[in-house]
C-alpha cells in the first residue's frame, strides 16, 4: 500500500517540486515587499538628511509590520459609481502578473537534492525572456482597468498615461533585451547567464545596459518616470479611489516589479550568479546584485525630479527607441561578422 503510494508520488515528483517551488517564490516575494518599503523609507530618509522611520522596533524594522496591519484593518471603500467587478479585478491582476513574471527568474545552477535535480528557478522556459515580457505587458491591464473602473477623471488620466508610457518604453526594453539575446544566441535565461561565465555582459554592452536600465525604470513606473501617480497633477493617479488592502496591492505589484526588473538586469547584464571574484555561493551573489540595483532604484527616486509628460513620450519615442534600434542593428552585424 505504502509502496504504491510512494511509487505514485515519485512518478509525480516534478509536480510536487513545482508546487513547493511556486509556493516558496510567492511567499518570499510577498514578504520581500514590506522589507523593501522599509529599506526605501530608511534610505530616502538618509538621502534627504533625516532619520526615516525609527520608532517601531530596532532601526524601525517593526514599521512595515505596523503598516501592513493598519492597511489590513482599514475600511475598504468602494464608491457607488465604480464598476464593482472591474474595481476588484484590477489590483489582483497587478499582483498576479507581478508574481507570475518572477517565476521564470533563475537564482543559480540546478542543485542535486536527494537524487532529484532541482533548478533554483520556478520554471526554466526556452522562451524565458519572452515570457517575462508577455506577462509584464499583461500587468498594464491592471492599471488601465483600475483607471476606468474607478469612474474618476484623475484615475482615468493616470491609467491612460501609464498605459501609454508602458507601451512606449516596452519597445525599448524589448529591443535592448534582444541585443543581449542575439549575442547570447538564446532566449533561455539560464543559457544567457551561462554565456557570461567569463565576463558580465555590461562590458560588451555598455549602451544596451544603460538603455535597458532607463527603460526598466520607466516600465516599473518609478521616479523620475512615475507620471501615472504624479501627486501634484493627478491626486494619486490610477489608484486615487482605492483604499485599505486593495491600495496596498498596487504597492505590492510595484515593488515586486521592481525586484523582477532588478533581477532581470542582473541576469542580462551583470552575469547573474557568477561572482567573478571567486565567491561561490550562487544565491548570495545573485541576491547581492539585486539588492545593489534596488538601492540604485531608490537612489534615483530621491535624486531626480519627475519629468514632464510630453518630454517623457518624446524621450521614449524620439531618443531611446532609435538608439535602441541602431544598437540592436550594430550587435546583429557584429554577431554575423564574428559569430564567436
Amino acid at each position, binding site marked *: 500500500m505504502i509502496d504504491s503510494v510512494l511509487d505514485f508520488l515519485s512518478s509525480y515528483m516534478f509536480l510536487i517540486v513545482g508546487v513547493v517551488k511556486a509556493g516558496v517564490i510567492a511567499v518570499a516575494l510577498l514578504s520581500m515587499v514590506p522589507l523593501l518599503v522599509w529599506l526605501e523609507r530608511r534610505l530616502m530618509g538618509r538621502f534627504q538628511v533625516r532619520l526615516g522611520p525609527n520608532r517601531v522596533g530596532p532601526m524601525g524594522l517593526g514599521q512595515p509590520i505596523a503598516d501592513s496591519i493598519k492597511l489590513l484593518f482599514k475600511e475598504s471603500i468602494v464608491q457607488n459609481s465604480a*464598476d464593482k467587478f472591474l474595481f476588484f479585478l484590477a489590483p489582483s491582476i497587478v499582483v498576479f502578473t507581478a508574481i507570475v513574471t518572477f517565476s521564470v527568474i533563475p537564482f543559480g545552477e540546478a542543485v542535486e537534492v536527494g537524487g532529484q535535480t532541482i533548478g533554483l528557478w520556478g520554471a526554466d522556459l526556452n522562451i524565458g525572456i519572452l515570457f517575462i515580457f*508577455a506577462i509584464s505587458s499583461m500587468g498594464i491591464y491592471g492599471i*488601465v482597468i483600475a483607471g476606468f473602473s474607478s469612474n474618476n477623471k484623475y484615475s482615468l488620466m493616470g491609467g491612460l498615461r501609464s*498605459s501609454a508610457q508602458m507601451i512606449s518604453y516596452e519597445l525599448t526594453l524589448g529591443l535592448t533585451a534582444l541585443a543581449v539575446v542575439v549575442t547570447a544566441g538564446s532566449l533561455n535565461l539560464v543559457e544567457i547567464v551561462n554565456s557570461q561565465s567569463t565576463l558580465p555582459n555590461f562590458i560588451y554592452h555598455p549602451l544596451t545596459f544603460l538603455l535597458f536600465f532607463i527603460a526598466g525604470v520607466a516600465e516599473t513606473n518609478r521616479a523620475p518616470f512615475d507620471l501615472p501617480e504624479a501627486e501634484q497633477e493627478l491626486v494619486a493617479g490610477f489608484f486615487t479611489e482605492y483604499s485599505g488592502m486593495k491600495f496596498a496591492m498596487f504597492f505590492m505589484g510595484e515593488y515586486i516589479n521592481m525586484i523582477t526588473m532588478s533581477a532581470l538586469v542582473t541576469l542580462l547584464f551583470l552575469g547573474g550568479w557568477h561572482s567573478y571574484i571567486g565567491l561561490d555561493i550562487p544565491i548570495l551573489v545573485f541576491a547581492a546584485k539585486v539588492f545593489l540595483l534596488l538601492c540604485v532604484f531608490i537612489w534615483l527616486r530621491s535624486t531626480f525630479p519627475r519629468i514632464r509628460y510630453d518630454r517623457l513620450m518624446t524621450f521614449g519615442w524620439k531618443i531611446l527607441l532609435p538608439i535602441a534600434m541602431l544598437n540592436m542593428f550594430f550587435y546583429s552585424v557584429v554577431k554575423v561578422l564574428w559569430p564567436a
Partner: protein
Amino acid sequence: MFEILEQAWAFNLDRETVFGLVEQSFVFVVGMTAILASLGVILCASPIYSALYLIGNMCCLALLFLFYNAEFLAAVQVVVYAGAVMILFLFIIALLGAKKEERDSSFEKLMGMGFVALLFCELLMALGVGFTRPMEGQATEDAIATVGSAKAIGMELFSHHLIPFELASFLLLVAAVGIISLAKFSYRPIRKRTRV
C-alpha cells in the same frame, strides 16, 4: 458525420500520440473557454467587457499554442495581441466613454447571424475534410525543438516564406505611414490651395 468522429476516436486510440487523456481534457476545457469568451465578445452590451472577453479569448488561444508545444507562438500571441493591440482597444474605449449599447434587431444583426452561420458551415466543412492529425511519437526535447522553438520558426519563416513575410511587413509599414500622414497633415483640396 458520426462515422468521421468514430474514425477520429479510433485513430487516437490506435496510435501512441503526444497527448494523453489528461492533456486532451485540458485542451478541451481551454478550447471551450475560448469559444465562450468569444461568444461573450459579441453578446456583451458594454464595450469594455467585450474587450475584456476578447483578451480572455486571446489568452486561451495562447494556452492552446502552449499545449501544442508552440511556445514561441504562444508568447508572441500574448505580447502582440493581448499585450499591445488590446491595450490600444481599451485605451480608445476608455477615452470615448463606455456606454452600454442598446440591443436592437436590425440589418446588421442579420448580417452577424449570417456570418456566424457561415463560420459554422466552415466548421462542418473542416470536419468533413478530416480531423487534424496529432504529431506521432514521443514528445522529447529534440522533437519539440524542431517544431515550436523560436529557432525553428525563424528558419521556416526566413527560408521558405521570406517574400510573403517581407511583403506583410511592408504592408504594415504602409499602414503606419498612412495613419501618421492622415493624423498629422491636414488634407486640403487642390482647388482651395490654388485660389489663395
